[in-house]
């Protein structure tokens, strides 16, 4: 080794430019790889080779060909699996077959592409003989005389057209174009109904009104999912929480929209911890209290209830409400408490005696 930058006996430089070192000696300076080394530049640069050694080229060609054959086999495997094993008559039918088919089809597809990609990469790096070349970069801007010529042509055109000389023409053209531009906006009007009072009430109000017209005191609460009416005696274990809806909501027109607003959580708060909100002393039934399930932040269902702290938590953005204290916000991005539904008892069944006293869900401009 003729490299006189290293003392005799020092290890060979490694590929990465560092040198192996004797245990206990300081590591070589980080800048070591910056040093010019003898023989530098004789090494062909990484990338497409410029001079091919016929023997190694032959080798590389065989490797590339092997990858291409592998890609061929994988693609054939993909087609063969699809035709032969993936199921007949337009389907796989079931989870197990779907998973199996996904693995085979995906695996062969990935193998085909990756094998081809490796093949081409090796081809480029080992077999292509193109040399790096230099090209000129050019100023993006057009030459000044071109700009000047264009400016002249532009002004001449404007002059010839008369648009600069005839203001009446120009202004009436603008006048004509403006409403035409607005026309498509008008067409969009029927995208949806106007908000009107839609966001201010829920199906609870409608159902209570109907029940009162029939001589009852309010509408029964039914359990979400089973639609069974709920007796006070069925919901008597403190700490319980279920989701309820007004009876008859399933039959309402646009039931999904009504459910999305009327969905309510019923919580059994231990009576001794319950602090009714002023003016709402009779809205609960022995600590059984109902709040809108729609978070006042951006409307996710506030569905998590922690029995020990009596906190209602919205899993989307963690707004937290205190069930014992009128669902007051105790943490998180919500600003307002969950609206409370006035409850009562009729024939042993839990009922709602009125709609929520305020619009449920996220705030909006007209809410006030």
């Amino acid at each position, binding site marked *: 080794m003729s490299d006189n930058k290293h003392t005799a006996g020092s290890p060979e430089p490694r590929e990465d430019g560092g040198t192996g070192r004797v245990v206990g000696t300081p590591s070589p300076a980080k800048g070591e790889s910056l040093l010019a080394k003898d023989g530098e530049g004789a090494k062909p640069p990484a990338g497409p080779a410029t001079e091919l050694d016929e023997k190694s080229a032959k080798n590389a060609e065989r490797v590339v060909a092997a990858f291409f054959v592998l890609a061929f086999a994988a693609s054939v495997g993909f087609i063969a699996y699809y035709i032969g094993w993936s199921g007949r008559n337009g389907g796989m039918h079931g989870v197990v077959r779907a998973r199996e088919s996904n693995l085979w089809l995906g695996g062969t597809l990935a193998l085909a592409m990756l094998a081809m990609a490796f093949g081409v990469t090796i081809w480029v790096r080992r077999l292509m003989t193109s040399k790096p070349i230099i090209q000129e970069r050019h100023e993006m801007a057009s030459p000044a005389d071109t700009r000047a010529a264009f400016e002249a042509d532009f002004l001449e055109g404007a002059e010839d057209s008369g648009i600069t000389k005839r203001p009446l023409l120009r202004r009436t053209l603008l006048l004509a174009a403006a409403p035409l531009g607005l026309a498509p906006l008008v067409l969009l009007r029927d995208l949806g109904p106007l908000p009107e009072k839609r966001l201010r009430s829920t199906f609870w109000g409608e159902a209570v009104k109907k029940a009162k017209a029939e001589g009852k005191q309010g509408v029964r609460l039914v359990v979400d999912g089973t639609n069974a009416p709920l007796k006070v005696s069925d919901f008597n274990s403190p700490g319980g929480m279920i989701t309820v809806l007004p009876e008859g909501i399933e039959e309402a027109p646009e039931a999904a929209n009504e459910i999305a607003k009327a969905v309510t959580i019923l919580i059994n708060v231990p009576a001794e911890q319950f602090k009714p909100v002023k003016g709402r002393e009779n809205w609960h039934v022995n600590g059984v209290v109902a709040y809108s399930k729609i978070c006042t932040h951006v409307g*996710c269902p506030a569905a998590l209830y922690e029995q020990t702290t009596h906190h209602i938590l919205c899993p989307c953005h963690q707004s937290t409400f205190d069930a014992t204290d009128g669902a007051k916000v105790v943490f998180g991005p919500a600003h307002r408490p969950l609206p409370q539904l006035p409850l009562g008892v009729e024939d042993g069944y839990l009922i709602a005696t009125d709609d929520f006293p305020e619009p449920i869900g996220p705030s909006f401009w007209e809410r006030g």
Partner: protein
Amino acid sequence: MSDASAPKAVSGPLNFLDERLGSTNFFQRNVKKVFPDHWSFMLGEIALYSFIILLLTGTFLTLWFHPSMEEVVYNGSYTKLKGVQMSDAYSSALHISFDVRGGLLMRQIHHWAAVLFMASILAHMLRVFFTGAYRKPRELNWLIGINMFILGMLEGLFGYSLPDDLLSGTGLRITQGVTESIPLVGTYIYMFLFGGEFPTGDNGDLIPRLYSLHILLIPGVILGLVTAHMMIMWHQKHTAMPSKNQSNEQVYGYPFYPVFMAKTGAYFLFTFGVVALLGAFAQINPIWLFGPYDPGAISSGSQPDWYMGVLEGALRLMPGQGTEWVIAGHTISMNVLIPALVPLGIVFGGAMAWPFIEQWITGDKRRHDINDRPRNAPVRTSIGIAAVTFYGLLWLAGANDVLADKFHVSLFGTTWFFRFAIFIGPVIAYIITKRICLGLQRKDAAIAGHGVEAGIIVMAPDGGFSEKHEPAREEELIKILSKENARPEAPATDANGIPAPSQKGPMGHLRSRLQRAMTFDDIPVEEHGEEHGHDDDHAVGSGSGPKQLGH
């Protein structure tokens, strides 16, 4: 090559085209177009290829998907949901997954490609930002790129809302809540977007609308922007990293045909291969586990796709107390508006404005085809890292419930941590990054000025020891010397006391103050002969930097 003529199969079509379009002119100009090499130039290619994969797999999915909110009873081969009421959209998405061969694979590849598309755009944008590749003349492509990312966010949100499963419905519910918070027109936009009230409106129009936006309008716009992006890039020629043979006057690299063409073709196959691998072996968005959308239900740990995480995090961090105002009978919901608009407004608005702000401050209106090394623009790099920190913290905050769960820390504790961290984190990141950049500049100054420590100890005749320094390799020197040293600012007034036009007025003062703030601690990197020795002062900037070079 030799004078052999091209085979007829090639020359025939070429001549046919040329006689009608004169296309050979174009081919001749571009056949050997030079593409400079650097690994980071491939990040944008990943985005391009992911987009192509999205178009291919997306088209496949449209052949079976029903964009309809019609209630149906599921009767497919997924037994756990048999007999369950659901929307036709959800039912058809299940059909694609379980009853169309390769359907699940295409769905998963489509979703993975979307995730990769957004991730690679972001990585590409960071590369462009930190190397200053957005500078003149490439500002337009920078703006196009940012807009593609924003459109990609919308495209993704609408896309994963289509299957109408429980998770996607939750995303739409949040979209509704955020829409409602817009002052004055919020409820109108809500009604007009959903065609009535959430979720199905008056006629079940939402899914069909999202569908046409997702498969036609937005991808159409993105395709147009991609085309413009590529044509501008092709026309302006790619930037190059500072190295031998690269300059504002010339570009050095391998020719398009055959080298770049083969490489980029292989790269497409790599990208497709990797997302196919993910689609085959890594489950994503298993809608059949979430169940159909039910407005009263939700699963804990609901997470959007990663690119929406920032918005999610911002919504989570905003305190709700004192942030909703009722003014003259109208509600203004700052607890929703601020997180929905401000963080992304800062990041994307700032990114769009930055090239022009930087030009205004530095007064540098020259063309730049050679990229900066990030250390040589410390303020830019530090602002970039501060923005990354800000974005990253918000993104993490979007998963604060998962973090609290996995690391067994208090949920509210994580929220409080992030509430402070999003303000403090970027400042710390700025300071540290700036120090690192200046430290690296000092190292460069030392290498350029003194050479590299050779590891050889020389004993002087008087018995003193010193370490020999060798000149750095040529390639390394070119890289190091690519730094443009800060020029002393032109005096604010000329000899007659007339202020320079750029320094006049409050804006002029602001400009020159900002320019000073950008350059006062610059470390000039200059080449000196080896004999220059250890004269420590010459490589130290005019500012407050330490007077030692650290050796």
